[in-house]
């Protein structure tokens, strides 16, 4: 029975996060916004509070000690967090997503028994994933087999006792500066291996990226960090990882990083993206109600009113389609019983949200005039965050290819092992 009522728990969770955002994140974000992106560091106390609210383990099933939230709740939370600060939202969502992937899929029972207690008890234990290098055109193919040639910058050599020796440097690893456990995909002689590495393992150094230094990207051209969370560089120098830390004997593809699995994955990123749009809209609305030009509040001017109407219409529409995709991720039967058409709803949510929010942030900045492009005010951060969602982790162009293949009924031949 079609029903859009949220449960009391969902509404309460949303209120709790809103309250956390208003009390803790927003005041801190205002301060952080004045710094260079790569110098933003979240206060550890914030981590503790977020973890105590259950946000670090939100997606982990209750049986493993997590909050066991459904996909809809995860999206509600991700949106609210991103209204406060997209970096905090990205960091917590990365850990929560990886926790589910790791503890509810990749680990053996023994491995789980080893790491779970520490992960659950340490409020500051975050997770990171370091996989093969990728470049934009990885996903720019249509109606033909995918040939991945991204290589793992980290090499793994099997020692005599079965341990693994890791070497190499990987740039721009999300969550690296905060992660205590890192899932590393490394290239061994006979194929990729996935290992779990503690951040304090001897031979591993986690470095902050210097904002002024320009590392060459996978394609050899200079790039710089352009994501919404926090990221850093991992340097492995003969880093010895015990054999028992081997968690997969092949490469690992994360569902929200593209591929067919992403089609029906929970649209966390889209929800964060929506939060960015809401932050921009809410600021613009407030400003438009206060600022007087032309003898009246600017919201009373037709042009500003029309822009605000378009903004709120887009955001509400995005939320509608994100929630639909979130619910669909947990209810595959709805496709079978005719309640939903056979389409990749998460991909649709991603496409529409990214385009909507991009437009919303530009309009919001327009309403702010010159203040919309000041580095020490939050509006410009929203504009840039919106651009990042539009172009990164499967760009909208590539997402449209995947959607078109779905409607065309194209079945891609399985990629060779190790494809990410």
């Amino acid at each position: 029975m079609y029903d859009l009522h949220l449960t009391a728990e969902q509404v309460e969770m949303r209120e709790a996060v809103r309250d956390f955002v208003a009390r803790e994140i927003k005041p801190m974000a205002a301060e952080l916004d004045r710094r260079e992106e790569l110098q933003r560091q979240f206060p550890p106390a914030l981590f503790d509070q977020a973890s105590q609210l259950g946000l670090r383990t939100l997606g982990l099933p209750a049986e493993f000690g997590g909050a066991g939230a459904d996909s809809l709740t995860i999206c509600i939370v991700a949106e609210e967090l991103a209204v406060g600060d997209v970096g905090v939202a990205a960091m917590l969502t990365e850990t929560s997503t990886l926790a589910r992937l790791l503890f509810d899929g990749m680990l053996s029972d023994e491995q789980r028994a080893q790491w779970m207690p520490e992960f659950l008890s340490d409020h500051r234990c975050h997770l990171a994933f370091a996989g093969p290098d990728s470049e934009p055109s990885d996903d720019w193919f249509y109606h033909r087999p995918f040939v991945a040639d991204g290589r793992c910058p980290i090499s793994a050599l099997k020692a005599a006792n079965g341990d693994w020796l890791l070497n190499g440097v990987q740039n721009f690893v999300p969550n690296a500066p905060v992660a205590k456990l890192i899932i590393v995909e490394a290239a061994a002689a006979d194929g990729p291996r996935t290992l779990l590495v503690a951040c304090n393992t001897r031979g591993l150094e986690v470095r902050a990226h210097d904002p002024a230094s320009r590392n060459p990207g996978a394609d050899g051209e200079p790039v710089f960090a352009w994501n919404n969370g926090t990221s850093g560089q991992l340097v492995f120098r003969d880093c010895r990882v015990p054999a028992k830390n081997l968690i997969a004997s092949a490469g690992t593809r994360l569902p929200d990083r593209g591929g067919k699995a992403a089609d029906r994955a929970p649209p966390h990123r889209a929800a964060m993206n929506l939060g960015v749009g809401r932050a921009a809209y809410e600021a613009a609305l407030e400003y438009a109600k206060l600022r007087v030009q032309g003898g009246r509040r600017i919201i009373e001017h037709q042009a500003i009113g029309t822009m605000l109407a378009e903004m709120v219409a887009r955001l509400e529409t995005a939320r509608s389609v994100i929630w639909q995709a979130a619910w669909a991720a947990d209810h595959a039967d709805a496709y079978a019983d005719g309640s939903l058409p056979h389409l990749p709803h998460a991909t649709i949510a991603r496409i529409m949200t990214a385009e909507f929010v991009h437009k919303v942030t530009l309009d919001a900045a327009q309403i702010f005039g010159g203040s919309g492009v000041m580095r020490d005010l939050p509006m410009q951060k929203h504009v840039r965050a919106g651009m990042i969602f539009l172009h990164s982790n499967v760009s909208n162009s590539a997402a449209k290819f995947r959607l078109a293949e779905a409607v065309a009924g194209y079945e891609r031949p399985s990629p060779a092992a190790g494809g990410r």
Partner: protein
Amino acid sequence: MDFSLNEEQRAWQMKARRFAEEEIRPISLQRDQITDPFATFDWDIIRKGSALGFRTAAVPKRWGGYGVDIVTQAVVMAELARGDAAMSKAFSQCWKWSHLIAASCTPDQQERFLKTFLADDTYLLGAGITEPNAGSDNRLPPGNDPKAGYRLRAERDGDHWILNGVKSFIAHGSVGKLFFVYTRTNPNVNLKEGSTLFLVPRDTPGFRIGKVFNKIGWRFYQNAELIFENARVPHANVIGEVNGGAKAGSGETSGFGELELAANALGVCDSALEMAMQRAHARARGGERLGDQQFIQLKLSEMHVLIEALRSFVMRTAWERDRAAQGDAAMRESVNADFVMSFSRTALDRITELNMEIHGTADGTANVQAEKLFRDAITSHVAGDIVQRITPIQRLLARMRAQSALAAARP
């Protein structure tokens, strides 16, 4: 119909192109990435550009400048902006003065300030209009509201005026040596009737610089606060008449301000397209060039179409402004300078974004230069805003009303 440049125009174009390639481009990204907004400026590039005439290009020959026409100005701005939007603007910002001075200044003022300007290769100019609570109201004042628009106060004190107040977001605020400052000399009437325009040198007592605004783009081009605390400006520095500030400013009918940003945008667009074409041409995956992909071709096509439309429109408008300057009444009436600025907004936003798309992002990284162009583009988003778009339409509709009133009055 002739769309070609004459020899002199072509020579300026080539000189600007070379300067952009050899001097501006090599330092552009580096200056952009400096964190402290006060520290982005580079006097060396100003001196080098001054030596080539870019700072004083628009000063009429009879005062010792180069007196280049507006077509040349547009071409030079676009070429310099191809290297760096903010550095191009650092030079063209000085040209405004040449236009305004020709329209509104006295021979004495010209004598006092032009000579110094020509002689000092670091003499930059700025104009103070915007205030924290007066943005679009300055450009589109609401009827008779004396509260609307800038509020910086000037009061007469013998041969001097005492200025009090703050201007914000003033271009060249932190580096300029002379400012055109709009003030209220009668706060009880509306902007049009109660404002006066002053020439204020940097060393005026009681006048100082506040903060430099920390913009996300156009980093080289500094916008700053101007703070006036009982600043004393001689009466001889009034431009036009007291309470005639609106008129004094509007005497400058070249439409240069609008065209300036459109020509600058054209240069940035050219730079983005160059990058995108190069990427499509040079980058290959699995034996296939990026440019072989249809969706990349479509993006490139959209970029080319917008750029060539913009180039056509900019150059035509520049020609119109030259004609207007030569006395062509119909051209003087043209509002194309407003329209071309609006169009440049659309083209600039879209083209820099398409360039980002073509370069893409992966693993949370982006191409540094593509991202800089995107930041530069949105930084100028106030150009081509709502006021910019509706003002010319209001003028055209008013003209229609006047014409039909005239027609109705005839027997």
